[in-house]
């Protein structure tokens, strides 16, 4: 493969506190999604499928599991010569104190030496929080065609929701003329997806200046993009059409999982030309019992199902005992539901056991119930 023209950096430092107990032990990008994946499998697989060979993952919060997960680059095929997935937590350096990443831009700034080592022409900055399939190579072609200094991927959102996003206002050629973070009166519905391509030389200069600026939040949205616009640089908006979801809350994580059950699903994970890669487990195939009832479900290998599963997503190794019912729910890996238990509109965390006859969640709850501790049954 050719030399690394574009290097990717994934911002994976966020805690994701609105995911509550799910992120007590792992950072948000390591949270499970879709029966077998972790959220970060999506940007890394997109990179691998787009022909990007070097991916830096910027970690910070609860990074042990994320680090060890990401460091095995072979999972995504990124283990050939001159390629790799590199875990980049904040480091102590000779000329600076050990510092946490103070913002998204600072995370890149603190790794300028790492990026320089590969001498890329372009830098792709991604967030590790979103579920989507995207060919970054197409975005790079767009960036080059338009001779842009930076290109930002945008997606059209319903106008009434636009005030929740960072909104790009563009001229008719797609050039960004204004960026507004969560505007009360949005002028457009083009939301930033947190996916940026920069000409590395220019960005490097901006970052060096930003590091010295004591007023700065060291953030791409708040500081770097506005500075580029003030400098009258050419920033282009790259319109993305397709499935894109921020899974920042229990409700939205549940919803994004449910999207996979639909036929046809808005997010097709069975496309052989754009697979999402993840760790493989040495699990058996699914064992479906004599009296099982399964309909409208998305189920991964290693599950043993003897009860009923309806409208639900089951991760690796879940066990559903006879007479147990799983309805409108998401079960993370190795959940055990004992005989006669009923789980409705719930998201059950890794390895939790639901005791015999227990009733969890309710069909008419406003929010999805998160169960992260053992639920005792009628013993």
């Amino acid at each position, binding site marked *: 493969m050719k030399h690394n023209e574009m290097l990717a950096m994934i911002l994976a430092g966020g805690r994701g506190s609105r995911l509550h107990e799910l992120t007590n032990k792992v950072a948000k990008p390591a949270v499970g999604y*879709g*029966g*077998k994946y972790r959220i970060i499998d999506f940007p890394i697989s997109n990179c691998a499928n787009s022909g990007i060979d070097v991916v830096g993952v910027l970690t910070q919060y609860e990074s042990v599991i994320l680090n060890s997960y990401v460091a095995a680059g*072979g999972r995504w095929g990124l283990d050939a010569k001159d390629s790799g997935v590199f875990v980049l937590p904040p480091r102590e350096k000779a000329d600076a104190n050990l510092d946490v990443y103070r913002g998204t831009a600072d995370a890149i700034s603190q790794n300028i030496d790492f990026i320089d080592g590969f001498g890329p022409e372009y830098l792709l900055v991604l967030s590790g929080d979103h579920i989507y399939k995207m060919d970054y190579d197409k975005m790079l072609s767009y960036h080059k065609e338009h001779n842009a200094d930076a290109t930002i991927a945008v997606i059209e959102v319903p106008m009434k929701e636009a005030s929740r996003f960072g909104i790009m206002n563009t001229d008719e050629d797609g050039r960004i003329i204004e960026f507004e973070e969560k505007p009360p009166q949005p002028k457009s519905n083009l939301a930033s997806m947190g996916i940026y391509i920069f000409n590395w030389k220019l960005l490097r200069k901006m970052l060096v200046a930003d590091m010295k600026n004591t007023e700065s939040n060291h953030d791409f949205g708040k500081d770097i993009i506005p500075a580029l616009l003030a400098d009258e640089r050419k920033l282009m908006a790259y319109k993305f059409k397709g499935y894109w979801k921020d899974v920042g809350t229990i409700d939205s994580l549940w919803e994004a999982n449910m999207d*996979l*059950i639909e*036929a046809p*699903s808005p997010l097709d*994970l*069975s496309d052989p030309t754009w*697979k*999402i*890669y*993840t760790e*493989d487990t*040495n699990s*058996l*195939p*699914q*064992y*479906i*019992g*004599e*009296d*099982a*009832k*399964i*309909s*409208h*479900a*998305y*189920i*991964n*290998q290693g599950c*043993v199902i003897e009860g009923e*599963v309806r409208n639900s*997503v*089951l991760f690796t190794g879940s066990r559903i005992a006879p007479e147990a019912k799983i309805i409108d729910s998401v079960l993370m890996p190795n959940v055990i539901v004992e005989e006669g238990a009923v789980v409705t509109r719930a998201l059950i965390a890794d390895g939790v056991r639901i005791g015999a006859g227990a009733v969890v969640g309710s069909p008419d709850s406003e929010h999805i119930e998160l169960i992260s501790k053992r639920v005792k049954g009628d013993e």
Partner: protein
Amino acid sequence: MNSALGIINFASNHTKVTGLQDYRSVGAISFLGRYRVIDFPISNFSNSGMENIHVYTRWKPRSLAEHLGTGRQYNINSKRGRLHLLFAEDELDSLYSNDISAYMDNIEVIENSCHDYVIVASSCMIFKQDFKELLDQHIESGADITLLYHSTDNAKEQFLTCQTLELNRQKGVLSITPNRGTAKNRQIFAGTYVMRRDLFIDMIKKAHNTSAMYSLMDWVNLMCNEMDIRGVAHRGYFGSITDFKSYYDTSMSLIDLKTARSLFDPDWPIYTRTSDSCPTQYLEGADVKASVISNGCRIEGTIDHSILSRGCIIKKGAVVKNCVILPDVVIGEDTVLENVVVDKHVRINHIKEVKGTPEHPGYVKRGDHL
């Protein structure tokens, strides 16, 4: 520590898995949805800490070579260990094509190995065995050769294309003979040999010089009177894939979760190559019972007592009963399949019924469009 070179033999000339074997070696046949038969012996070696493994193949090697790849999936140390695919140079279907001639073709590789012992395992048997334990037992016994066997009380019905060991009271092997189905209780030979490497090399050369048609088993059988050859019993699940019927029966027997648990031990993982398929989608109308389902399938029909491999599509109204479906098969609407093995990449759209019987299961050829 004693160490052994692992050798996985190809299927003998007695083995004929009709249909399936036309496209790949027995070791490369899809098994229980997500595995290949050869995953079992390789995982046994890997889990026993034996990381130098020679896999022999003779014809139609593509499927096997593709599946093994670099061998990384078998959890073998990538520097110290190695999974080595070795080819027999003989012509197809030649009478002289047997394991001895394949070992002779590759004798240098065997001679250059640094291990004191070899363990030869079959690529057609499904079982779990700690080879380290077996090696220790062999060394302790002082025997020249140790053979692994499995005792059955069903030899009239099962293992009919397998070999049996005739043992004396001290577990000394008197002979290796075909199972003729004349008695219920038999010791089925598991195709596993343990011996010193220098003895192995010596035997190969002698056998080869004596008759070009001898197989390793023939030679060991001849040596029963001259050498100290002993049997060690295997315990636990044991399945053989030595003909089409035994492939079907062995597959079906593992649909039962209790039986499967006697083979699959969380502390003894069976490794296989991942295909990175997504989970399986069960649509409205799906009705799945008593079955083993792999990832990447889309199910809208009925599945009963069957094994579904990766990437299969079962459309609305289709009924799949007592079947083994290999990867990437499409079963069209309202099609009824019963007691059939359906090979890879088959599409059944126009024919609405394919039925075999439990005694004579049917077979649909690889890539057929019906």
